């Protein structure tokens, strides 16, 4: 009985340590939230250099990388492809840049933006997708009456009846089998919205890591093995339809590489991204008539690479700023919290217990609290063996363990001793 109670007391202390390591740091960071500065990176085809739009709670600053500031109108003229509608309104859109005539329709066609962030990569949406009719002859895409899944076969479930459409399922399954698809699928990537100019269907990774392109053309299956290497280690495909029809989408691999899937028979174009970690950073790709800008956004900075339309590097620019760990609140936290536990994280949509360990700075406070604990427990005449256990707890868990020791309060546990509380 006594042994059991002691074990439960230890469990209670561990639960207190656990709860404290979640809620005390959470409260601390709520009280010490720092301002967020955002930087949008552009490459000026006029000045042939990077220009930055920096914004915070106080407002917006337009600068180049040397710190020269511009007003809004000057900035818009420096990046005419981004602001072409405003420049058309004010009559400031140049007729030519570098000898190339500038046509608004062409600018619009060539402006593309893609993004891949860790939440998109780590998300696990319901594996049920609408397959649009890609050649309906209508201006707008229409939502299909059924949704598909790819398990042991490709199955279409009619939404109205909630039953499998056998005919369509068999048609698509046999088309996939003919193309060499190995069921089930490991990942289905597409852009399941009707708000897009046209439909390119889905890119599906089969059980042998081969990538297939699947869409529906005039009610018939279009299934094609893309020939994308199966050893690429694809973790995410951002498939977005652009009128430009230069690439189907963006592939991110487990080796932190990024590729475009080109319209040229699915040929891969490797993008020169630098210092990118797909589990931590957001990759943003902005394209215009002349350039492609690849920006890797991190918690405390960004790397940007600008390429020409043939993906040859033209220029690079990196910037960093103090992360929350380097600020005063972060330095103090490294002294007071030996570790923190959060249940939510910016890089994943899933709830879990995410442990963040502090550096050795926290030992200072842990040792001070350890000394206080030893004095406190000795004063309460706690057995030396127990003082040893509690000391280890305080040394390892710092203030959390100290709170747990104070919370437990009474340490005499002989059930034969009656005690009126």
């Amino acid at each position, binding site marked *: 009985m006594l042994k059991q109670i002691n074990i*439960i007391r230890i469990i209670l202390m561990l*639960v207190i340590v656990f*709860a404290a390591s979640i809620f005390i740091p959470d409260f601390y960071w709520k009280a010490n939230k720092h301002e967020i500065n955002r930087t949008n990176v552009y490459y000026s085809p006029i000045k042939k250099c990077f220009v930055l739009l920096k914004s915070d709670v106080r407002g917006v600053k337009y600068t180049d990388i040397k710190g020269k500031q511009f007003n809004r109108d000057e900035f818009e003229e420096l990046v005419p492809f981004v602001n072409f509608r405003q420049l058309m309104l004010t009559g400031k859109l140049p007729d030519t840049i570098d000898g190339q005539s500038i046509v608004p329709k062409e600018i619009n066609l060539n402006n593309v933006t893609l993004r891949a962030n860790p939440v998109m990569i780590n998300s696990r949406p319901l594996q049920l997708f609408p397959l649009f009719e890609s050649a309906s002859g209508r201006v707008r895409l229409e939502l299909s009456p059924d949704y598909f899944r790819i398990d042991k076969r490709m199955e279409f479930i009619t939404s109205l009846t909630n039953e499998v459409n056998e005919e369509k399922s068999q048609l698509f399954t046999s088309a996939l089998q003919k193309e060499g698809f190995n069921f089930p699928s490991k990942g289905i990537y597409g852009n399941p919205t009707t708000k897009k100019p046209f439909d390119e269907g889905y890119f599906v990774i089969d059980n042998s890591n081969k990538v297939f392109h699947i869409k529906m053309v005039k009610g018939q299956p279009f299934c094609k093995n893309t020939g994308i290497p199966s050893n690429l280690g694809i973790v995410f495909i951002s498939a977005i339809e652009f009128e430009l029809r230069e690439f189907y989408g963006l592939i991110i691999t487990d080796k932190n590489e990024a590729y475009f899937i080109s319209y040229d028979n699915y040929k891969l174009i490797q993008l020169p991204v630098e210092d990118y970690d797909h589990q931590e950073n957001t990759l943003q790709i902005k394209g215009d008539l002349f350039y492609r800008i690849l920006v890797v956004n991190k918690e405390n900075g960004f790397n940007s690479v600008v390429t020409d339309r043939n993906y040859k590097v033209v220029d690079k620019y990196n910037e960093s700023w103090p992360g929350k760990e380097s600020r005063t609140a972060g330095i103090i936290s490294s002294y007071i919290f030996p570790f923190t536990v959060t249940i939510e994280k910016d890089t994943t949509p*899933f*709830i879990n217990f995410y442990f963040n360990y502090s550096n050795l700075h926290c030992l200072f406070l842990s040792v001070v609290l350890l000394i206080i604990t030893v004095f406190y427990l000795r004063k309460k005449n706690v057995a030396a063996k127990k003082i040893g256990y509690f000391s280890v707890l305080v040394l390892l868990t710092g203030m959390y363990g100290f709170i747990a020791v104070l919370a437990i309060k009474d340490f005499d546990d002989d059930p034969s001793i009656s005690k009126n509380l």
Partner: protein
Amino acid sequence: MFKSLVFKEWLKIRWVFIGLAAVNFLVVMNIYFDLLNTFKVYSANVVVGQFQAYEIVFYSNIKYILLLTGLILGVFQFFPEINQTRLKLTFHLPRKENKLMFQMVSVGVLLLISIFLFDAVSLSIICTKFLPREFFESMLITTLPWYIGSICTYIWLITIFIEPNWVKKTISILVAVGIVSLFYAGEGYGKYAFSIWYFVLLTGFCSSIIFLSAYNFKRGIC
């Protein structure tokens, strides 16, 4: 003696149990009619598409009802025990307080589980009637932490009720509020898919703390 104890607990909380089961039934029916009406207003493929794309948790009404179910059952089962010092008499029975506590708590947990089973089966029927099986599978994993969170609430409430020391009671309330809130975080489908077993383990650890409170209670009244 166990049968007598179960009967005593049942007599004490039967009307609360029936009331809570009725509330859960009404909430499930409300979810059913809401979904039925959604399918009457919008075409089925639009509903499925919106649910899938925006991870609309159409059964979210049950989330805090489950929390309240555990809380209310705990209050009605143990408040009279403490307020009318019945637990003192129970602990004088020729049984160890751990065993008695375990049996009393088991009755409450089993009644909670019976309500949850009803909820889970009803929601599963609703899900599979209207939506593809992916929604049913995600519903199970989405609602699971809410059920476990309700049991955890019930357990912490008992721990707090029977703890005789006010300082420890206050600390337990703070820890309980924190721990229980962990089960109800996140929006969307299956957010606890990779961590549900850690939460089951946490509930298991928290359950054992009841015995420490019971030990303290008995020691306090000796």
